[in-house]
């Protein structure tokens, strides 16, 4: 810590603002806006509020293009979380957020505090958190450091979620060289809310008291937001990573929900990135008011903290709450019951009268005791944060024929060995090693547990359920940013449909490299285009999201990785569908196109050791029809199992269904082209269904009526073997046969991650 804070003049003359991450032109804008030089605390607050992390200055312009409205939307982007209506007076609040940078430096606390932060975003809306999901990406496990990062991130998530008592029910884990230096930790939380009890982050009602509640404030995590906005966080200190206390979070959760339930709350917001500075400015901004805060009143766990440190601390498990004037004591009684601090630190201040000169809204006034130590118009911090129109330029690699050459791979020599190897790819293999460390059953409502296409959590009366999933495919997006992003949305929706749900809405977590590189920014812009296109075509709005840039180390950027979190509604839990095969004699049917390619596939990546394109084409019209039809036949009660065909293609999908159900299957496929393409090729819009023989005709008729390609693949057996026969173009061609015991498949699939980690 600095002994003495630099003067405004020194900040200017020595360009100290640059250390805060502010550019010269940004600093000049601040001076012009204030009509004077900002002091140390003001410079700090501007730097975090104008950081990429808080201001979305590079992404904002493009994010506006996403569809954010719809019949069911109760709360769109701009709040702590989005909310959709599910009828019966209930809504689902959900959001996904990244904690990539902290996790790269201190994986255990980085991941744990990521979980803590997203849980707070949900209960700050007044919603009871009912589930967590984690979308994780790491480098290959043959390297010690990647095993360390993977193991500690999972342990950190487990420690936090398990203790708070929110089940971790799903997500994904992907391994690729592209994430070696920048692992991705995206955490999603889903909550249930009474639609007439939505709390918002607004500082309304002039003179209403402003309270800091929860944990005490320390020096941890100062400038975390800034440091998430620069490349190569490794070069920074671990002390910028906060430490989580899930026990405190559990108490805070219960106390805040009680407070909201009592109707005392006017506005409430998590103190996440940029702490008190950001929470107070954003709450004031949403209400068009100001906030007057005395930092001397903020409960601390360290002595000698400066106003700068108090305003920018990212100590976890704290909230900023505005309550109705005169009801402070009631609020404090609730927090006292839970053993927590709740201290009035300030008041809501009126908007400035002279709006012409200083913009709409009020002042963020920071005092220490009687002395004013900082004074900034809220509008300058929030509404007037810079918006950049960064240049985007199609990167050369996208037109490199050598990269788009997956179909030039020589034909497979041993399909049996390839199938076993695919099942043992850590990205495809069973994730039980991960999810058995998570309490996925607490709250006793998890009716589809981890390992299926999507998880389903039952509503308290067990009549209906909330389905949820996360999906992304960085390799697809890298090879074709727009098309790959369409695939991510389509696959997420397909996963929900496969368990019998109707997709409702999206939260997106956009992980990209350095936006200052035109090629990277092109990926970003194209990706958003794709997400928007797919969401519009499938009628699914985006209600919340998060952008994580600068996932770059030593000039190496990650695969552009938009992760789509999606929730859906299962109207009738009696029609819950899982991917495990149920009964010998049932027929296996493929919905969707059999036009697949090796481009972008996990198989091509396995064979070549790198990403090989092009990303398979996607027909959103067909996608919509396949999904609608799948829901229709599930709703009719004709489907016993369903599974999305994704990484590893048809052979892997059916193998997974056999392993899950402990059954065998016999498949006969017409494969006029290459056998490996037919078995392992990828392409969207495909679902495998298990249908009882008596319902096959109905399913086929429905497919014909709905213009959905529908192929009978074979049937379920009880002999413990998966037998695949591929017939060539001509009758005289010798069929290709692949036969494997399900026991052998299971060994590879179940063992891969465990072996890799031990």
């Amino acid at each position, binding site marked *: 810590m600095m002994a003495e804070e630099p003067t405004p003049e020194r900040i200017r003359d020595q360009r100290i603002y640059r250390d805060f991450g502010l550019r010269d032109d940004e600093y000049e804008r601040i001076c012009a806006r204030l009509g004077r030089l900002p002091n140390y605390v003001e410079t700090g607050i501007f730097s975090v509020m104008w950081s990429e992390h808080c201001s979305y200055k590079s992404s904002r312009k493009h994010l506006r293009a996403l569809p954010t409205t719809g019949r069911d939307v109760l709360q769109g982007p701009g709040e702590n979380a989005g909310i959709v209506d599910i009828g019966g007076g209930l809504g689902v609040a959900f959001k996904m957020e990244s904690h990539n940078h902290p996790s790269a430096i201190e994986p255990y606390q980085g991941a744990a505090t990521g979980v803590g932060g997203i849980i707070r975003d949900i209960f700050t809306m007044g919603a009871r958190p009912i589930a967590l999901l984690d979308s994780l990406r790491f480098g290959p496990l043959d390297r010690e450091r990647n095993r360390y990062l993977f193991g500690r991130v999972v*342990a950190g998530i*487990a*420690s936090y979620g*398990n*203790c*708070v*008592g929110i089940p971790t029910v799903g997500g994904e884990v992907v391994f690729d060289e592209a994430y070696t230096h920048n692992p991705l930790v995206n955490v999603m939380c889903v909550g249930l809310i009474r639609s007439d009890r939505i709390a918002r982050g607004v500082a309304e009602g002039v003179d209403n008291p402003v309270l800091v509640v929860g944990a005490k404030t320390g020096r941890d995590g100062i400038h975390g937001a800034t440091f998430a906005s620069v490349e190569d966080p490794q070069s920074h200190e671990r002390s910028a990573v906060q430490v989580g*206390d*899930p*026990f*405190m979070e*559990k*108490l805070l959760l219960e106390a805040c929900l009680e407070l909201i339930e009592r109707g005392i709350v006017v506005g409430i917001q998590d103190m996440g990135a940029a702490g008190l500075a950001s929470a107070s400015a954003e709450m004031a901004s949403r209400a068009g008011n100001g906030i007057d805060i005395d930092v001397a009143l903020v409960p601390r766990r360290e002595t000698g903290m400066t106003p700068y440190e108090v305003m920018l601390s990212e100590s976890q498990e704290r909230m900023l709450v505005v309550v109705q004037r005169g009801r402070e004591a009631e609020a404090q009684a609730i927090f006292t019951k*839970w*053993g927590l601090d709740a201290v009035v630190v300030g008041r809501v201040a009126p908007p400035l009268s002279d709006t012409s000169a200083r913009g709409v809204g009020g002042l963020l006034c920071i005092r220490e005791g009687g002395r004013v130590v900082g004074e900034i118009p809220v509008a300058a911090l929030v509404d007037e944060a810079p918006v950049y129109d960064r240049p985007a330029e199609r990167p050369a690699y996208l037109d490199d024929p050598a990269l788009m050459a997956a179909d030039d791979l020589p034909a497979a020599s041993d399909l049996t060995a390839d199938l076993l190897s695919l099942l043992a790819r850590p990205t495809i293999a069973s994730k039980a090693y991960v*999810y*058995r*460390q*998570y*309490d*996925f*059953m*607490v*709250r*006793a*409502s*998890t*009716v589809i*547990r981890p390992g299926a296409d999507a998880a389903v959590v*039952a509503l*308290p009366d*067990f009549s209906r359920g909330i389905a949820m999933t996360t999906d992304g495919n960085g390799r697809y997006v890298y090879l074709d940013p727009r098309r790959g992003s369409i695939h991510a949305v389509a696959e997420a929706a397909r996963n929900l449909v496969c368990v019998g749900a109707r997709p409702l809405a999206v939260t997106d977590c956009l992980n990209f490299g350095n936006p200052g590189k035109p090629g990277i920014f092109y990926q970003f812009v194209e990706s958003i285009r794709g997400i928007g296109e797919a969401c519009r075509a499938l009628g699914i709005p985006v209600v919340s999201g998060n952008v994580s840039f600068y996932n770059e180390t030593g000039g190496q950027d990650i695969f552009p990785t938009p992760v789509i979190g999606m929730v859906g509604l299962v109207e009738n*839990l009696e029609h*819950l569908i899982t991917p495990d095969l149920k009964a010998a004699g049932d027929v296996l049917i493929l919905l969707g196109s059999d036009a697949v390619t090796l481009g972008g596939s996990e198989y091509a990546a396995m064979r070549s050791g790198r990403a090989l394109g092009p990303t398979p084409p996607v027909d959103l019209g067909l996608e919509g029809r396949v999904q609608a039809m799948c829901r229709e036949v599930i709703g009719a009660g004709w489907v016993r199992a369903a599974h999305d065909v994704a990484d590893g293609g048809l052979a892997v999908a059916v193998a997974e269904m056999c392993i899950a159900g402990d059954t065998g299957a016999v498949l006969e496929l017409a494969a006029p082209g290459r056998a490996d393409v037919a078995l392992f090729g990828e392409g969207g819009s495909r679902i495998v269904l298990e249908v009882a023989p008596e319902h096959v005709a109905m399913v086929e008729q429905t497919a014909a009526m709905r213009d959905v390609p529908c192929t009978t693949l074979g049937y379920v057996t009880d002999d413990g073997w998966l037998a695949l026969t591929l017939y060539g173009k001509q009758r005289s061609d010798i069929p290709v046969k692949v036969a494997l015991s399900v026991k052998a498949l299971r060994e590879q699939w179940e063992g891969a991650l465990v072996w890799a980690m031990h």
Partner: protein
Amino acid sequence: MKFAVIVFPGSNCDEDAVRAVRRVLGVVVDAIWYQTASLDGYDAVIIPGGFSYGDYLRAGAIARFAPVMTAVRRHALAGRPVLGICNGFQILTEAGLLPGALLPNEHLQFRCEIVTVQVETNQTPFTSAYRVGQQIRLPIAHGQGNYYADAATLEELRAHDQIVFRYVGENPNGSVDRIAGIVNRQRNVLGMMPHPERAVHPLLGSTDGAPVFISLLHTWEALFAGPSPVETSAVGVRSACAGGRE
């Protein structure tokens, strides 16, 4: 019959226990704050799972000093049933109401899955609705479920038929003698790591936990002759579960 479910700061299976009692038995059940001094009027007490006080010192080590534990001890000494599930089991051993201790899992990881457990005795108020030797499926979710007791204590437990549940197949945590649950010598205090309250609905993957609650009710009814007042319309569930299990 009236149930109390104790709520410590950090309990997180309290609501599940309350809902399970309501769903399976339909009797009165109250959540009782840890600062409550008396449990008078309650027939059975459940200490639920979770992370009381964050489990920061050692699972259950701080909860045992909570005011309500004096009342729990009185309740137990009076011979009334106390059921400790998961963190509740840990608290009961820390409080000395059950012998032995729960150590960190042998593999040092948290473990959540549905396991097979064998009912070793039905001579308890918690297991009378099971058959001896019956294998049931129950969820586990814990980081410190590795039951340990010294040889003499183990011998005592065996000699007095106090081992109530044992894991079948893979031992998920390294427990000595595969122990998943034990009762005290007086047979009115049960501690178990598996979660019966999470196995009370077919959609949860198992209803094998319901007989724990049914046993408690049957025992109570036998003692006090006559059905207990029912809070909601869950009687149907109760008979359906009871019928399906015996």
